[in-house]
């Protein structure tokens, strides 16, 4: 929990630093934001580890097939990365690039969801086949 406050403080400091650096050149500030975002993601990964273990336990309990969960986890990860990348692009004045990343993420997530859509179709066929 203490590391959360440390990270929050660090992020606020980097914002101030970024504002100061932006006077000399916008590039420095963008690089700083990228670095800090990566650091925050690394800290987040440490916190996510026990949650992933818990999710594994839930998976064991619910006897879910991997085909159902893997696309969801991948889609969530892609969503997070796309969100951060898009925000960085927007902050650095490249909103169009940010939007492109968002669109790319949507396309990739839809591609990942294809097995799920097939499962839904199979489920419908099994149900309607009983009629």
């Amino acid at each position: 929990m203490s590391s959360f406050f440390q990270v929050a403080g660090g992020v606020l400091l980097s914002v101030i630093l970024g504002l100061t650096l932006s006077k000399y050149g916008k590039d420095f500030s963008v690089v700083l934001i990228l670095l800090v975002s990566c650091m925050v993601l690394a800290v987040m990964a440490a916190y996510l580890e026990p949650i992933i273990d818990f999710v594994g336990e839930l998976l064991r309990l619910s006897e879910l097939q991997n085909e159902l969960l893997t696309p969801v986890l991948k889609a969530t990860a892609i969503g997070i990365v796309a969100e951060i990348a898009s925000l960085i692009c927007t902050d650095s004045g490249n909103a169009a690039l940010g939007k492109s990343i968002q669109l790319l993420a949507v396309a990739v997530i839809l591609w990942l969801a294809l097995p799920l859509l097939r499962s839904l179709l199979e489920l419908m066929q099994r149900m309607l086949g009983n009629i």
Partner: protein
Amino acid sequence: MRRVLILLVIIHALLVPVSAMEFTAPEAPDEAQDLMPPQTETFGEGLWKVISAAIDKLQPQISKSGKTCIMLISVALLVSILQQIPTEKNGIVEFAGCIAVGVMLLDSAGSMIQAAVDTINSLSEYGKMFLPVMAGAQAAQGGLASSAALYTGTMVFDAILGKAVSVWMIPLVYMYLALSVAGCAMGEDLLKRIRDLIKWLITWCLKNGLYIFTGYLSITGVVSGATDAAKLKAAKLTISSAVPVVGGILSDASEAVLVGAGMMKNAAGIYGMLTIAAIWISPFLQIGIQYLMLKISGALCAMLDAKRVSSLIDSFSTAMGFLLGMTGIMCILLLISTVCFMKGVG
């Protein structure tokens, strides 16, 4: 001597072979034999034994439903955890959750639907063997008009309900489930509306079917019961006044015969009612347990942030409710008819 011989020949020619009429309910089918009590004289005691035996056999279903309940809560918890991650593409999490719940519940729902159809068919088959016995006993007791009306009515409703369930309502239940899965996975309102329409249609048909049947029974019971009672009274009066000297004795004897027929009819009725209960109770309790567990899971999942998953679980529990209604109505139809037959004339 010749006259005596001629008299003996005439008497022999006029002899009609007679035997006591026997009204026994048909044997319980194999699947209900285990639940039947050894003594079926008292209905209350017999019914309690049938229920106790059915509850004893329920343990595997309780643990199976409990496991399903844990699995559903796990999926809902998983969905709600994954939804906490703040991205704008959370729809896929609920989508996958709904498919997972659909896959998990489809097999158990399928076996419950099959159990309900089998129970309805068994009840219908048993009714086809049992109700003629009761109708015959009722007719022997003097209730010709009421037994014919009751038998015809019950058979017609039994046939209509059996056909409606297998040809029409079971496919509707499957359609309801398919629409629920699709509607909850996609979050599409139109599909949910069609699903609600099917729900209304099934409920309306079941409710009104039972109303029409009980209404028919009340009307035929009052009209034909009163007619039979009047006919019986007239016959007794005719016997006692038309036959000199022994008319009163004959009338009393006919009363005793009617009482005997009534007792046989009641014994057959009690056995039949216990058999109907034995056929019905086991699948009804199994579906009931599944219904209850799904309701509990739905309520617990509603507390988590997985609304579409919770709504899908509720839809499955509603489908189980339909099955309970269908089997319940079929059983009630036969039980009400049997009670009406047992009630007697007048």
